[in-house]
């Protein structure tokens, strides 16, 4: 195994573990809720359990932009960048700083969708590098997104929407005039623009992935 393959396997395995950790804690939370509703974790508790792993995973994911740039992985640099940016910003700059989102269902559902999709994806990559991925894993990789991607996108959209008022009133991350570089930034305005962009790009990315699926799963119509 040459160096780049070794590196990629280390990367994919680490990510696999991180997101598996996130997935397992959310699944356990859901099971407890279902079968022992009186003795279950709160949403906030499970959030504080999985968030360190999700944060590390999402931060590490920036490397994937480099992978695309240096030909270590397929896909364009631009797509990798936009996807990393989208998830990173919503996690680190919206969910994490805003406390009332820690106990919201949308947050945990979103992390569930991300974790499940990523566990399958990294498993697929690991199997692809070692030999050939199992037929089931291939199918899951290119089919789960059909429900997980819409769920993820809707949750991200709602998180931005629910936090608008807070961002406005707290002037979160705002940069105001006057200053030497005549620069101003309003996170509230930015998030509203993002809300609009999600409507267009969300649909665009989804149809793109459906096309990919047709190519990768030729047995499917």
């Amino acid at each position, binding site marked *: 195994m040459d160096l780049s393959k070794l590196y990629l396997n280390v990367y994919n395995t680490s990510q696999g573990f991180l997101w598996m950790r996130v997935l397992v804690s959310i699944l356990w939370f859901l099971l407890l809720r279902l079968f022992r509703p009186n003795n279950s974790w709160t949403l906030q508790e499970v959030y504080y359990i999985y968030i360190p792993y999700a944060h590390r995973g999402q931060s590490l994911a920036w490397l994937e932009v480099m992978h695309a740039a240096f030909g270590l992985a397929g896909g364009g640099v631009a797509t990798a960048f936009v996807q990393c940016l989208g998830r990173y910003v919503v996690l680190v700059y919206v969910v994490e700083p805003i406390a009332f989102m820690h106990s919201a269902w949308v947050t945990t559902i979103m992390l569930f969708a991300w974790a499940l999709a990523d566990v399958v994806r990294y498993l697929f990559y690991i199997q692809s590098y070692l030999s050939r991925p199992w037929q089931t894993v291939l199918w899951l990789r290119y089919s789960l997104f059909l429900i997980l991607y819409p769920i993820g996108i809707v949750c991200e959209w709602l998180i931005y929407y629910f936090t608008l008022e807070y961002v406005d009133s707290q002037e979160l991350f705002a940069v105001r*005039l*006057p*200053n*030497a*570089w*005549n*620069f*101003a930034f309003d996170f509230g305005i930015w998030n509203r623009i993002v809300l609009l962009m999600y409507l267009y790009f969300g649909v665009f990315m989804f149809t793109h992935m459906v096309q990919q699926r047709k190519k990768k799963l030729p047995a499917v119509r």
Partner: protein
Amino acid sequence: MKVSVQSTSGRPLGDYQLPASATLSSLQPLFHAAHPLYYPDRQRFYPSPAAPSATRPPALNPDSPLSDADVLLFKDLGPQILWKTVFLLEYLGPLLLYPLFYNQPRWIYGDAIHAAVTPWAREVQFSALMAWTFHYAKRELETLFVHRFSHATMPLSNLFKNSIYYWGFAAYVAYFVNHPLYTPPKEDLVYTGMCLFYFMEVGNLSAHWTLRMLRPPGTKVRRIPRGGLFELVSCPNYTYEILSWLGFNMMTKTIAGLLFMCAGAFQMLVWAGSKHRRYKKEFDGKDGRALYPPSRKILIPFLY
């Protein structure tokens, strides 16, 4: 000769009788007559691929010769618009929007911002207005009188994409430079920036003029550009433009302006790269063609 046309999905689109040694340009008006929606600028023809599953060969151009019994594939490029029209419209936004921010601050910033702009700040804002207006007025005049446009068209959707870029950035930069809370840079920087800006604008105009003079009208001559900064770089017009925006930013010192400059520079780098490659490919020194000067760089003298 007889030539047949199909759509890319195999639907027959007619057979056409052409003179013995016809080129594509003879077919185009006939095709338009049979299909009134597809005027020649919208037409794109390809020769049929060697095998049904082979990749499509490159498109034909109007001079491509045709042979009897050729089967051509037709593709619709969608509604088209002249390059010249797009240029005129997309530069109109910056020309009209920016002065609005300078002249009618109450409309943009409202009455709530009561800050009084210092005299020096207002002077810098005025100089910026002059520079910006000069740049885009020059672009409009170049579009009308300097640039030689062949009858080239582009898809209509490009007009909206380009206009959003130019008009959007015009509003974004104008908002910050003309803001009541604007902080101007120091005098030295402002005057240096202003000089750099106007010198580079003149350079850019000279590069455009050289390109215009490269081909006498009515000929199809292709020559290597020479003289001035052309000796050092393939696209000095882009070099000059990036530097003139640098001058503008030295004069105004806003992040918005810098972002605009970087966005433009990035795009120009890409365009310059392909232009440079095209020059090198065409002027390869073989078969009596001139050799493109090997030491000439893309955009940055001696470096890149």
